[in-house]
């Protein structure tokens, strides 16, 4: 079968890292990712089934990996070679469709008894992601044994499957996984009570979905988002942002909104109750710390990496930075409903066959500038 494989090749990783610095998505042609004819992955144990991907999205974390920007933190919790792709809607052998819940928790690894986090239903906090009868891998798409969505066949544990209603298109279903991330963030926010003022940094896929999820799942007052491009601003507004501004304008807008003063360097004296950082870069985190109110929280939804931050304000203003990774099963259930209710399939902008993977990845990496949001591989036609 055809699959995109990411192999552990140090030289190619360096080449990807250099190319990725020259341009987003440029790591694909020169890096460790390549299209190959490979054997289908074997079913690891009972309870596993074969899943034929129909659509598989390209995520920001995938792009970071391909462009050599991922943290070495991941090395012990992935296994090579792996087939990327964790935003997957696929067909099962009985012809039904399912969305993949990619977290590889204790149950999928045959670990019994399961770890305390999995016991509590917090599978995204699983403490055994490098152990059990599977090779290490925090999710399908990063594990040698499971394969991934960027192929014509992968395996999935029954606990990883979420049935897709007939009324939901593939284009909508492929948005469920990233929406579940956003729902998880929104439910995390909701758990700490209403928020009068919220800023969402970033209006890529994750940012837009987070805006929609915050409106659906949490009680937030004024929501200000950043967006670089006109289509992002329009979508953010339609999904529930009260105001969408250019990133450089955010500090001034939040200053005005919160009646804050400004210290030299741009630090607001007050600020918003919550900043949801859907970018995770040094710049976005720095900005988040500048505009969050004393005692407020920065929720990091976008995947960060090595970052240099001045945390003095965090200490002085008693602000919190909290990570927000993946989802739980209930998040997926809510995400499925939100995708349908909010018409989130409109965020899928383009699909590509595997054979054009370099184009697909470059498109995904430059989605904002090209008027796009989500880019995916379309594996439904034979030979794709």
């Amino acid at each position, binding site marked *: 079968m055809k699959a995109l494989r990411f192999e552990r090749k140090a030289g190619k990783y360096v080449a990807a890292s250099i190319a990725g610095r020259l341009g987003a998505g440029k790591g694909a042609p020169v890096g460790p990712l390549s299209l190959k004819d490979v054997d289908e992955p074997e079913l690891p144990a009972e309870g596993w089934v074969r899943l034929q991907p129909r659509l598989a999205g390209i995520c920001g974390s995938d792009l970071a990996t391909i462009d050599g920007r991922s943290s070495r933190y991941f090395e012990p919790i992935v296994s090579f070679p792996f087939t990327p792709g964790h935003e997957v809607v696929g067909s099962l052998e009985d012809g039904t469709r399912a969305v993949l819940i990619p977290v590889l928790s204790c149950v999928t690894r045959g670990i019994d008894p399961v770890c305390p986090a999995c016991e509590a239903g917090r599978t995204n906090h699983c403490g055994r992601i490098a152990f059990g009868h599977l090779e290490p891998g925090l999710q399908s798409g990063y594990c040698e044994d499971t394969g991934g969505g960027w192929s014509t066949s992968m395996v999935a544990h029954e606990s990883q499957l979420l049935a897709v209603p007939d009324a939901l298109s593939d284009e909508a279903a492929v948005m469920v996984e990233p929406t579940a991330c956003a729902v998880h963030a929104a439910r995390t926010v909701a758990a700490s009570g209403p928020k009068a003022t919220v800023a969402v940094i970033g209006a890529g896929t994750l940012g837009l979905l987070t805006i929609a999820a915050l409106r659906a799942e949490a009680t937030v007052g004024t929501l200000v988002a950043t967006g670089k491009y006109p289509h992002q601003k329009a979508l953010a507004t339609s999904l529930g942002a009260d105001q969408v*501004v250019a990133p450089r*304008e955010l500090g*001034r*807008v939040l200053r*005005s909104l919160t009646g*804050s003063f400004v210290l030299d360097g741009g630090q607001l004296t007050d600020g918003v109750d919550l900043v949801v950082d859907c970018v995770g870069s040094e710049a976005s985190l720095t900005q988040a710390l500048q505009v969050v109110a004393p005692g407020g929280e920065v929720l990091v939804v976008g995947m960060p990496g090595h970052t240099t931050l001045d945390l003095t304000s965090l200490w002085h203003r008693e602000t919190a930075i909290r990570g927000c990774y993946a989802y739980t099963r209930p998040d997926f259930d809510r995400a499925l409903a939100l995708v349908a209710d909010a018409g989130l399939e409109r965020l899928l902008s383009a699909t590509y066959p595997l054979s054009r993977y370099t184009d697909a990845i470059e498109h995904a990496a430059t989605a904002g500038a090209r008027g796009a949001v989500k880019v995916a591989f379309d594996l439904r036609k034979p030979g794709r």
Partner: protein
Amino acid sequence: MPRPGFVLDVDKSTPPILFHHGEGFRLEKLPAGRSRVIYPGEPLDALDDVEGAIADALANPMEMAPLADLLTPGMKLTIAFDDVSLPLPPMKRPDIRQRVIEQVLDLAAAAGVDDVHLIAALALHRRMTEDELRHAVGDRVYDAFAPQGALYNHDAEDPDNLAFLGTTKHGEEVEINKRAAESDLLVYVNINIVSMDGGHKSTATGLASYRSIKHHHNVHTMEHSKSFMDRHNSELHHSNWRMGKVIADAGVKVFQIETTINNDTFGQDGPMSVLAKREWEWTTKDRVSFIGMQQGLKRLSSPTRRKIFQGHRAPYGVTSVQAGAIEPVHEKTLEHCFDQHIVPVEGQTDILTMGLPYICPYNVNSIMNPILVMCLGLGYFFNMYRGKPLVREGGVLIMTHPTPWEFHPVHHPSYIDFFEQVLADTKDPKEIEAKWEKQFAEDEWYRHLYRTSYAYHGVHPFYMWYWGSHALKHLGRVIVVGGDNRAVARLGFKSASTLNDAFEMAEDVVGPQPTITHLKNPPILMADVK
């Protein structure tokens, strides 16, 4: 004998016309047979003896006792003076304010008055810097009063130093500087560069608070001021006159001093002098000088060009000084202003063109940001008429200016937010006023910057937009030639890269073969449209 302003009908022999374009210029050929150019009058003869004229005005005021008779030992005297927004460009030293204030102070000293304060009547404008104050009042006055805290900027947000004097019959609240209100005599020193300035507006606006100013600096007033340069047809002035009555009824005695200056903006020699000449009268030396200036400017960075232009000091001549009661003084001042500025014009035009220069009242020593471009074009220049607007209703205004997306971060902080937030939301003055003004006007940060830094008040960009509201309502389209496309679009206007492109775009609105009128300002002119 200086030649008055006049209207030139453009024919095939008419040379290209000079358009101001920010810190640069354009030479534009206007279509023959249907274009006209309104030229300002040449500088009126200046007073030979300015000191003598001042002394005479103070000794023989209109409908008031001589100033010397109003000054008594132990009295409280306040001298207010126009701020850095006047005149434009700033005048060469000595500034007329300095010359007037020195004589007032000499009289006060002779009368034994020792409780004297001098206040820059800046309303909601930014505070003047020490250099700017020194330029306005002179080093001698500054050094004598500023170190003792007796020379300072008016603070329209200082609740401890404002006095509420009452309301007009229209319900307009009148609140002015407490020191001025509680003085035995308030002497107000004006520079009346245009007919909008002076009269009751000097004290009722210049020394007022936001609470008071908001009653006339609003969309309704501006839409009903046709024009605000024509005091008797200006709701802005009617409101100020009503407030002036409240001020007088509250017992505030004002000794008004108004001065007028001529059109000698660019001087009779030097590289800028060519800007005041009529194009067909340019000598070979003028052409060489202009080409050299153009080439030189092109090689300079924008900040360097700005510094050069902002450094220009105009050699205005003083044409009149009148003092005494506000209303007779101001009527006389208007006569002098109109003598210099009025140009009779027959009928309106389909398209009005104007070249916007580098400066307006609110960017002295600063940056002409896009909101100020709008205000200068649609506010000040559009309203330089008496009778009817130069351009017909539904007509097109074409302005030339680079309109950079650039703001002075210290002087115009609320302008940045207005441009980024408010204009991104709506361009409609009424909607802006209803939805956004209060938030900006009462913003504590802007208030802090206005009071302690050199920032215009938070509400000031709103006023700039309101200043253009009459024009916005009147015009069918506004086109900016040579502007930053993004900034022009944010203003809600259309961009054109050349004047001919702009004419073609304008024809979509006003039809083919439109009539065109170019308002050749500066130097200043005011069209008396029949």
